[in-house]
């Protein structure tokens, strides 16, 4: 009548029904609470995984943006069709040290992003690891400041190149080198987009660091 031994069929949750009379004669029933794996993840690690996926997507977008900025600036080369012996009519990015710094900083940021992709993947696969998230937060903050510095230094030189400055007798060179100017302006815009994406990455890391 009473089954007081556990069955071990797969998927079954054996419910021990102890018969006090036959307690000593049978082996103690095995209590297996749950033979199935949980069908759904706990909600905390689910939204952390969503944040991790968002993090990776944003990182890939930022790689594209900063690489585009670095290459657009680095491949500038415009030569005006007239020349004299004493005057230079060629414009390259390394004529201006701000632009050189811009190319180096954007290339560094793109390289850092590529290297940080594995850490981001680790944060998706194991959402409870805090050390990797904190490290991503620290390095993303430093990268924000680096890219913002490069983008705004180049932006101030581009502004000068477009408008000149009569108080300092600086001529607006964009009126002559307009192809160079367009390319350089586009590179600065791409770099500002990358800086914005970095700020969003910092916020995503901060929100994902909360433990609840």
């Amino acid at each position, binding site marked *: 009548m009473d089954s007081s031994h556990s069955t071990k069929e797969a998927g079954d949750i054996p419910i021990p029904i102890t018969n006090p009379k036959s307690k000593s004669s049978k082996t103690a029933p095995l209590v297996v609470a749950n033979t199935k794996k949980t069908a759904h993840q706990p909600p905390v690690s689910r939204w952390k995984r969503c944040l991790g996926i968002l993090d990776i997507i944003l990182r890939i977008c930022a790689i594209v943006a900063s690489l585009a900025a670095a290459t657009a600036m680095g491949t500038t080369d415009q030569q005006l069709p007239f020349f004299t012996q004493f005057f230079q009519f060629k414009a390259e990015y390394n*004529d201006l040290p701000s632009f050189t710094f811009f190319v180096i900083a954007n290339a560094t940021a793109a390289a850092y992003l590529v290297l940080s992709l594995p850490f981001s993947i680790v944060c998706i696969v194991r959402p409870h690891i805090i050390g990797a998230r904190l490290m991503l937060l620290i390095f993303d*903050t*430093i990268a924000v*400041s680096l890219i913002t*510095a490069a983008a705004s230094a180049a932006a101030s030189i581009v502004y000068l*190149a477009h408008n000149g400055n009569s108080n*300092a007798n600086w001529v607006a060179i964009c009126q002559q080198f307009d192809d160079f100017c367009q390319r350089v302006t586009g590179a600065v815009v791409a770099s500002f987009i990358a*800086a914005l994406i970095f700020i969003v990455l910092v916020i995503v890391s*901060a929100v994902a660091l*909360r433990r609840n």
Partner: protein
Amino acid sequence: MKAGPLQLGVAPPENRGIAILDFFLRLIAIVGTLASAIAMATTNQTLPIFSQFIRFKAKFNDLPSFTFFVVASSIVSAYLILSLAFSILHIVKANLVNTRVLLLFLDTAAMGLLMAGSSAATAIVQLAHNGNNKVNWFAICQQYNSFCKRVSGSLIGSYAGVVLLILLILLSGVALSRR
């Protein structure tokens, strides 16, 4: 990580130390950014030569990058003064999470703004010191000596502010992960 009974709602005592350190770093950052904004805004040099057609006066608002620098530094120092209230709140109640995340986001935005202003001004200062003969831009520092020195000095305060803001962001991150 110590294994022990989990106490919900009670922050570890290190978080209070982090909040106090946060408060002091904010105070130093306020001093740095305010000093650099004032030093840049009070530049005014007139050369002893004058003629009717050319001006020989240099102020910060002759160059739009410097204007942007003064505006950005003032905004960031005003924000830092207002965020002292949040900092004191975190000292008193050390286990608030949402305000810490908000403070971290605002600190990141302020750091970006301050860095943008500082590096735009740095680019112009570098041009003013060295000139650039490829684009025929003349080095104005050779004439306006004291203007240049003052402007270069005010950049130091704002870079110190940027470093302190980065430290504040890291402290907020560490405090968030330790709850």
